[in-house]
């Protein structure tokens, strides 16, 4: 077996040079050079596009089918664009704090990591509170989830997104806890980065929702 090489050195890129095997095959190096976890997360996010796409399309198809009789207002007629703009802005800025958290742990700055994570989670929390408030306003106006296709689609889409944000907050808080217990180290900063990817994704989805669902009439 002369052609066994150290996979540390060569990853599927043409004919490898001959280097004696040192690892018995248990490779820490991947063919693409990216870790499995990060690649897996991105692959997963690619698929999430189709999931959110389905719900966004449902909303676009139904947005004017708001109901009959007295309670026939579309979501667009009830939006408070300024309010939503502010909460969207908060969510957008949480992407900044998230990325600063990642950069902090890459520097090995654990305190900054926790601070930024907390800030991110807090901003996510503000966004969710805003959403809860908005939902309550609509409910008070008489429009619930079961009112009409338009309202089902509105609550379905934004609620679904809200659940994603909530899950993200839970992940952020877990990261803070793990960091406090010393389980997040500089050399596994990637775990924070991956949580960050999820968080940013939830944010970019909102960028789309904010424009397509709120701003465009």
């Amino acid at each position, binding site marked *: 077996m002369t052609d066994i090489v150290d996979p540390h050195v060569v990853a599927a890129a043409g004919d490898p040079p001959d280097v004696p095997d040192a690892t018995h095959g248990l490779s820490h190096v991947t063919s693409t050079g990216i870790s499995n976890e990060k690649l897996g997360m991105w692959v997963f996010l690619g698929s999430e596009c189709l999931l959110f796409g389905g719900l966004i399309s449902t909303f676009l198809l139904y947005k004017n089918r708001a109901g009959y009789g007295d309670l026939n207002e579309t979501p667009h007629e009830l939006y408070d664009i300024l309010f939503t703009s502010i909460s969207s802005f908060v969510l957008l800025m949480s992407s900044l704090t998230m990325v600063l958290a990642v950069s902090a742990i890459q520097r090995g700055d654990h305190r900054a990591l926790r601070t930024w994570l907390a800030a991110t989670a807090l901003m996510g929390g503000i966004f969710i509170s805003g959403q809860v408030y908005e939902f309550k306003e609509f409910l008070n106006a008489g429009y619930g989830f079961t009112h009409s296709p338009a309202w089902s689609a509105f609550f379905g889409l934004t609620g679904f997104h809200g659940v994603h944000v909530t899950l993200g907050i839970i992940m952020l808080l877990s990261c803070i806890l793990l960091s406090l217990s010393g389980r997040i180290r500089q050399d596994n900063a990637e775990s924070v980065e991956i949580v960050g990817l999820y968080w*940013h994704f939830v944010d970019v989805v909102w960028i789309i929702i904010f424009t397509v669902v709120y701003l465009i009439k």
Partner: protein
Amino acid sequence: MSADATTVPAPAGDTHADEHHGATDGLFVKTAIILAIITAIEVAWSYLPWSDWGDGTAMVLIEVGGLIIMMGVKFVIVASVFMHLRFDSKVLTRVFYAGLALAIAVYVGTLATFEFFTGGHSWN
């Protein structure tokens, strides 16, 4: 990332240095400012009295087109800078944008069959 970085516990400081070519905190803050500005323009844009200006439908097209473009720009900025796509392997960009492109294609196709493509003899 380099092989060493993944296998050998590296000394503090330079672990990922090679990975984030130029992705500094300064860049992130600048990016955020740009995003904030675009968002402000978006909201203002949507408040402009488009339909009062000239030919109504054309104006609405401009309004919507503008919003879509700004949305796209924001999306790409967040994905490339905050999500590091610009600095990472192209594979990541491909799988993610493949999903996105596919989603846009099939859903735009679907909505189009609902809205426009009746053609022929129709009762609706």
